[in-house]
């Protein structure tokens, strides 16, 4: 039997966000704003949505408020099927993957995906109580916070590839420039290398301006089958071409939050988790790094953006700083990275962030990104990674 290529794409009909910030309200409020914006953008009546997929986190009062159903009730119960996905930083991508499965299996044509978060001030800290069986408790007891890990990766780059703190500062300057005119960004201010160097040291070599904040925010997508998009005259809508949510492969070689040790690679080869995420997505989409017009990556720190560029194979291992210095990753360059302004300008709103990355790609591929528009953008890729072996990459194409 001859294999016939079946489209595994779904269409993105609408996108919407609630601006990132510290607004002090419930995550439900933000989610509803983003959902209504996405529905309006798609020209879809909420009552026609057949599947609601919520991205969740487990902090901050979520118990008893399961994301998908909570958003559906706030928008008004209308009998849609519902789902909630929790996968740390990849929650949004897994919620989107659930919608894609429903659509591709023919169970529904039209779905709404929502992620929203409200965050505490300062470091993300573990739940209370003595819990030595919880790796998160152990590492915080030792004083090992999230920036510790980002700093270890950054210092490793300096030792291995000769990256400098000035390179890291250039990532911040670039992303601040990109986010300056993004209405959904929390920090909209240009910075100089002197500003970054004058900010307090958090975890050597990273300063406050190298490390992303935590934010409130929400993002939502209205997605449909390609057939549905055609029927409503939206055959040209950007499409989700791949969603990768693979686990790490043992032995995972990098020290990862919240662990205090890596896997031992005595009996199995060492693997890079970050590199595995986009590799699966490229394979699924039948695309390669050379096809990519722009990338939205998880810059939890400035230095981590450089790691991601290599994991996405936008350049060879160790050459990200050189690519950055060449200007290629600025809007107007060959391969813009974090045209939205990235986490540097947004801060992290965990269950919303992976969806926010897809919103940005959608606006870019439609040519609606205003001052930060990447000319002729055709293929965009996202990457993110968080706790407990979760991470994702989404590819969007026109």
């Amino acid at each position: 039997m001859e294999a016939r290529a079946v489209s595994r794409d779904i269409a993105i009909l609408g996108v919407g966000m609630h601006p990132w910030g510290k607004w002090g309200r419930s995550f439900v409020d933000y989610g509803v704003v983003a959902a209504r914006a996405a529905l309006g953008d798609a020209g879809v009546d909420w009552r026609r949505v057949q599947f609601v997929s919520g991205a969740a986190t487990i902090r901050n009062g979520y118990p008893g408020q399961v994301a998908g159903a909570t958003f559906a009730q706030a928008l008004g119960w209308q009998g849609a099927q519902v789902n909630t996905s929790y996968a740390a930083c990849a929650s949004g991508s897994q919620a989107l993957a659930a919608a894609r499965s429903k659509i591709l299996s023919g169970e529904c044509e039209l779905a709404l995906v929502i992620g929203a978060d409200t965050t505490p001030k300062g470091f993300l800290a573990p739940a209370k109580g003595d819990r030595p069986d919880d790796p998160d408790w152990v590492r915080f007891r030792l004083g090992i916070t999230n920036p510790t890990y980002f700093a270890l990766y950054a210092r490793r780059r300096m030792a291995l590839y000769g990256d400098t703190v000035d390179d890291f500062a250039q990532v911040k300057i670039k992303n601040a420039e990109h986010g300056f005119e993004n209405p959904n960004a929390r920090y909209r201010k240009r910075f100089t290398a002197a500003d970054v160097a004058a900010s307090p040291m958090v975890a050597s070599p990273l300063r406050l301006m190298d490390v992303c904040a935590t934010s409130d925010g929400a993002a939502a997508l209205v997605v449909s089958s390609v057939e549905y998009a055609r029927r409503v005259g939206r055959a040209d809508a950007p499409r989700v071409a791949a969603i990768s949510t693979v686990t790490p492969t043992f032995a995972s070689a990098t020290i990862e939050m919240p662990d205090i040790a890596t896997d031992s690679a005595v009996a199995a080869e060492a693997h890079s988790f970050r590199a595995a995420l986009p590799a699966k997505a490229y394979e699924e989409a039948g695309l390669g790094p050379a096809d990519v017009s722009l990338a939205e990556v998880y810059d939890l720190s400035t230095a981590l953006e450089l790691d991601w560029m290599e994991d996405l194979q936008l350049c060879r291992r160790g050459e990200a700083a050189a690519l950055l210095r060449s200007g290629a990753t600025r809007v107007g360059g060959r391969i813009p990275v974090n045209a939205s302004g990235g986490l540097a300008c947004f801060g992290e709103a965990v269950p919303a962030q992976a969806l926010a990355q897809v919103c940005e790609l959608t606006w870019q591929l439609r040519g609606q990104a205003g001052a930060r528009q990447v000319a002729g953008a055709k293929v965009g890729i996202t990457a993110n990674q968080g706790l407990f072996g979760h991470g994702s990459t989404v590819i969007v194409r026109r």
Partner: protein
Amino acid sequence: MTETISRPFLEGWFAESEGGAHLIGARCTSCGTYYFPRQSRYCRNPACDGEQFEDVRLSRQGRLWSYTDACYQPPEPYVAAEPYVPFAIAAVELEREKMIVLGQVVRGVDVGALQVGMTMELVVEPLSETATERQLAWKWKPAP
């Protein structure tokens, strides 16, 4: 006057003997994979279904994979001295075990004294101290 009691902040994670301080790990008796913290139920190597483990002393020395410090006071359950004293943190690669283990760096050694690739050695030192109790932890120290 009350005596200050010293005890490990976690029981059974490290020990001191004549040869010096060491972490207590586990090793799968089927495939040889090392674990820290100890593992006693199932081997995480997908090619191995081992469920038998033996306790092992992990290598006392390794190469510094990377390092940083904690310039701001970490949140609880970290127990901070008053005033807060920043400390360095090391990620040390153990050659025999082919794994990286994190830990604080001993007091008095800041990031200026560290360099990726240098040899580090495990010691036991107070992690936190109150008037009545001193909690001990493993720490990394540049090897002499």
